[in-house]
Structures are given as structure tokens and as C-alpha cells.
């Protein structure tokens, strides 16, 4: 009631609200809508088992609204991927596949998005229990979009599927194929960040299989070819120490980190680990 006495205050508040509202750029509005919709979608995905279809549909409408407002934007791409995901939650796999296929077609030239859409499409088959078809589509991602980050995820995804589903023979084959793929990619694009990433993936593939001698052989080969960095040396030392219980080799590697990389955080860790090993009987 008192505010009515102070018309000046009212005008100032009104002015500020108008200025702030006018200041909301379309980027701000769209990013805000997308963030709120994403938050709602995450809640749906987290509570997949108990969420009501009504709520799923409500969130889908939020994303559809974004697509309608900015159809040719990156917001629309994210919204389409999310809608596909929400259809998957609703177990409407055909509808999800339609969304992903449409996204792949409409994103001509944007290979990363196309690869992502194709990957998601494969996952719908997997969720449906049709692994054979999923595998066909995943191989498609590898062939058609071989220069994308998404394609690099495919070999390990396949191997993990077999591993998760208790099929060690196929898992071993898939891991071997993954190593071969990453190695060939590293050779195809030498002296690039992609090559570095692929070599890391080879190492990760060995580690995932708990193939410690294989991992050490690969690190050794890399060491001959390039000068190893402190992180890889630390990994080598830990494999010796924790997995193979090879104390002398672990100490030797820690010592090398201390000598080659003085005044680094890794060196500090190596020094502490070496001291711990020295005091161990």
C-alpha cells in the first residue's frame, strides 16, 4: 500500500523490469528454453521406470516448441536428439528412429551430427533386443562417418556389449578389432590430435581387458617411437606396482619420472610412491 505513495519507485521498478526483459536476446531466450527442457528431460530419463507418459509427452512438447521457434539452429538439433531419447524412454522405438533418420538427412554436410544420429539409431535397435540390426548400423557409422569422434566410440561400444552380455569370445574378437581400428586410424592421420586420441584408445582397450602385458608392450613400443610423457609413465608404473606386483620395475619407472620431469605434480606423486615402495618390506 505504501508503494502507491511513491510513484517514482514504481516507475523505477517498471523501467528496470522493461530494460531487463528487453535485454533478453533471442540467444538468451532459446538457451534458457533449451536448458529448462534439458533439465526436465534429464529428470524423465533418471526416473525412466516410474515416470508417467503424460510427463514424457509434456517434455517432448517443450523440445518441439524449441524446434518450431528455431528450426535451423543448433538448438533444434539438440532438441531433436532429446526428443528421440524421450521416445526411447516411452519405448516408441519406431518414432525415435524416425526422428534420428530425419536428423541425419536434414544435417547433410554436418558429419558429426549425422554420425551421432546414426549411432543413436543403432542404440534403438539394441534397446529393442535386435543386436544384429544394431551391429549393422554401428558398422555403418564406422564406414560412412569414419572421420568423426562418434565413430571412434563404436569399436569399444561393440566390445563392451559382448563383455556386458557374457560373450567373452566375441568380446575378445571385438577388442582385437577395436585395437586394429584405432591403430589404423592413428597411422592414417599421423602427427594429429586424432592420432594421439587413437593411441590412448588402444591403451584403454588393453586396460579394459585387463591385458596388462599387452598394455605394457604397447607403452614400450610408444616409448621407442616417441618420448613418453609423465602421465603415461605414471600409468606404466602403476601397472607394474598394482597389477603385476613387479616392485623393481615400478621403482625404476617412478625414478625415471623423477629424473625426467622434475618440478611437476606427477613427479611429486612419483616421489611419494617411490618412498612408500622403499619403506615396504
Amino acid at each position, binding site marked *: 500500500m505504501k508503494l502507491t505513495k511513491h510513484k517514482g519507485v514504481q516507475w523505477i521498478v517498471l523501467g*528496470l523490469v522493461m*530494460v*531487463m526483459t528487453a*535485454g*533478453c*536476446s533471442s*540467444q*538468451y531466450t532459446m*538457451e*534458457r528454453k*533449451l*536448458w*529448462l527442457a534439458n*533439465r526436465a528431460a534429464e529428470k524423465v530419463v533418471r526416473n525412466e521406470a516410474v515416470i508417467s507418459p503424460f510427463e514424457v509427452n509434456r517434455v517432448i512438447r517443450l523440445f518441439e516448441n524449441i524446434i518450431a521457434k528455431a528450426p535451423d539452429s543448433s538448438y533444434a538439433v539438440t532438441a531433436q536428439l532429446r526428443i528421440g531419447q524421450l521416445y526411447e524412454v516411452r519405448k516408441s522405438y519406431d518414432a525415435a528412429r524416425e526422428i534420428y533418420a530425419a536428423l541425419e538427412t536434414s544435417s547433410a554436410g554436418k558429419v558429426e551430427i549425422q554420425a551421432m544420429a546414426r549411432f543413436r539409431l543403432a542404440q534403438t535397435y539394441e534397446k529393442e533386443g535386435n543386436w544384429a540390426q544394431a551391429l549393422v548400423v554401428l558398422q555403418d557409422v564406422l564406414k560412412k562417418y569414419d572421420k568423426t569422434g562418434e565413430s571412434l566410440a563404436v569399436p569399444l561400444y561393440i566390445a563392451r556389449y559382448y563383455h556386458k552380455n557374457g560373450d567373452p569370445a566375441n568380446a575378445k574378437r571385438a577388442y582385437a578389432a577395436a585395437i586394429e581400428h584405432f591403430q589404423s586410424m592413428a597411422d592414417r592421420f599421423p602427427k594429429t590430435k586424432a592420432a594421439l586420441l587413437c593411441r590412448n584408445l588402444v591403451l584403454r582397450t588393453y586396460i579394459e581387458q585387463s591385458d596388462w602385458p599387452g598394455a605394457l608392450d604397447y607403452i614400450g613400443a610408444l616409448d621407442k617411437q616417441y618420448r613418453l610423457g609423465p602421465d603415461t609413465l605414471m600409468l606404466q608404473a602403476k601397472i607394474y606396482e598394482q597389477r603385476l606386483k613387479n616392485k623393481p620395475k615400478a621403482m625404476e619407472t617412478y625414478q625415471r619420472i623423477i629424473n625426467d620431469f622434475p618440478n611437476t605434480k606427477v613427479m611429486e606423486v612419483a616421489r611419494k610412491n617411490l618412498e612408500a615402495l622403499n619403506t615396504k618390506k
Partner: protein
Amino acid sequence: MPSYARSQGSLLQRTWEKTFFLLRTRRMLILPFAIITGLEIITIAALFFLIQPPLVKYIAPVVLRFWGEQFLHYPFNLLLISKFFYYAQMGLAVILGTFMSGVTISAVRQYTLTRNNTFLLGQGAKQALLRFVHLLIITLIVVCLVQIIYSLEQKVLFKIMARERNFLGIAKDLWVIIGTCAAGVTSGLVQVLFAFAQTIVIGDNKNFLSALMRNFKFIAGNFFTAIMLVLLPLLVYLPVALLKADLFKLMNQTIPEVLFVVLGAGVVLGLLINVVITVSVTIAYLERSREAEEEQE
């Protein structure tokens, strides 16, 4: 000891009565700090424009360099407002806040010492300008000490957060609250220690060094009053400080725009706290000085 408590209690009661009477009847006293509040609100609005196109392109290189790509997009870009506002507020508090404190102290002094209880803000501004350097040095000392406390708190909290296990079995979220409260109370105590220095610079026309000496002497005799006059109002700010301590979590749990509510609450509370502390501290000092003069006579 009972007589000390009685005298402190009586001083406190008189001070608060006079403070609230003065703020109720002479609202112009709020004006100097209200100007700062207005500027702070304008700064928040300006920062809101700054993080959006077309202006964002000018700060994009700095944001990319120090915070990364995601801080150019919603809702992380809103956090930039909080970060930038902290520095802007600090600048305003040091330069303009010091001056406005001087103006308010002078106005309260004029009101108390004139027969017809009047004051002229213009005259206060003139006096504050003349003593500005001394006032500023005192502000800078306090700000530096408070900054040291907060950076220590950050370092300790960082170490606690970096631990794999909960330190002393206390959850990490709780450590944030403990750290914020501890830093808030400690920095409040620092402000208590320097509470009367600026009043002395203006009132007794002393340089900052003499003012500091006289301030410490005065605090030694009136520590309880100083604590109650400075620390108690500052504690009102603690809820806002706690909300600010984990602002991103709050933004995620509610809506990101809650940041404006927190910043706004901080600005408004800051105005009230600054006014109450400055006026009450000045009145307490003038009351004690009057008592001392009466005793001498």
C-alpha cells in the same frame, strides 16, 4: 564488571534508540548509501547486457581465456554476472562507499551537535572530500584484511574439498557452510576492530594513524558495544553469503535467474546494514565523547 556491563548496556540501548529514531525521522541520511545501491543495481543490469549479444563479443576472448566456452552460454553466463559484480561492488565500496560513509558520519555528527538537529549532506560531502585520503586508507586496510581472511578460507575449503574422504567425518556441503560462517564472523570481527576509525577521522579531524590509535583505545573500553553494533547487523548478511557460497547449486535446484534475487537481496541488505552500522557507530562514539566531556566538567 557489573558496572561495565551496565554502562555498555545503557550505551547500546541509547545508541540503537537514537539510530532508529534518526533513520525514521531523517530519511535523507539513507541517501548517500542509497546512491551506491542504485549504482549497484545499474551495474547488475549493465552486466546482464554485457553477457549477451551484441556486447558479449567484446568480453568473449577474456571469458574463453579464463573460464572457457560454456561460460558464454546459459546458465553459466549468468554466473559471470556474479563474478564481475563482485569486483564492481568492491570498487564501488572502496571508492564511493568510503566517501559516502564520510558523508553519513558528518551528517549524523551535524545532527547531534547542532541545536536544532539539522544536517546538510552537501557540507558532509565537503568534509568527506577533505578527509578522503585518510578515510580511504582505513577502508583499504580493512578490505585487505578481509580479503586475506576470505582467501585463507578458500584455500582451506579447497584442501578439504580435494580430500577423498570427508574431513573429520563432516560432509563437504556442511564444510562450505562452516567455512562461509567462519569467514563471515572473522571478517566481521576485523570490521569491529576498525569500527570507529572513520568516525574519528571525520569527527575529531584526525589523520588515519591517530584515528586508528584512538579507535583501538576506544574499542578496548567499549568492545561489547562495538561487537553488538557491527557484528550483529553483519550477521544479517550471513544467509545471503551462504546462498552466494554455492550459487550454482541453488541455480540448478530452482531457476538460474534466482541469481538476480540473491544479488538483489545482497544489495538491499548491504544498504540497510551499511546505514545502520555507520549511523549507530557514529552515535555511540558521540555519546561516549559527550559522557567523557561531562565527566571532565
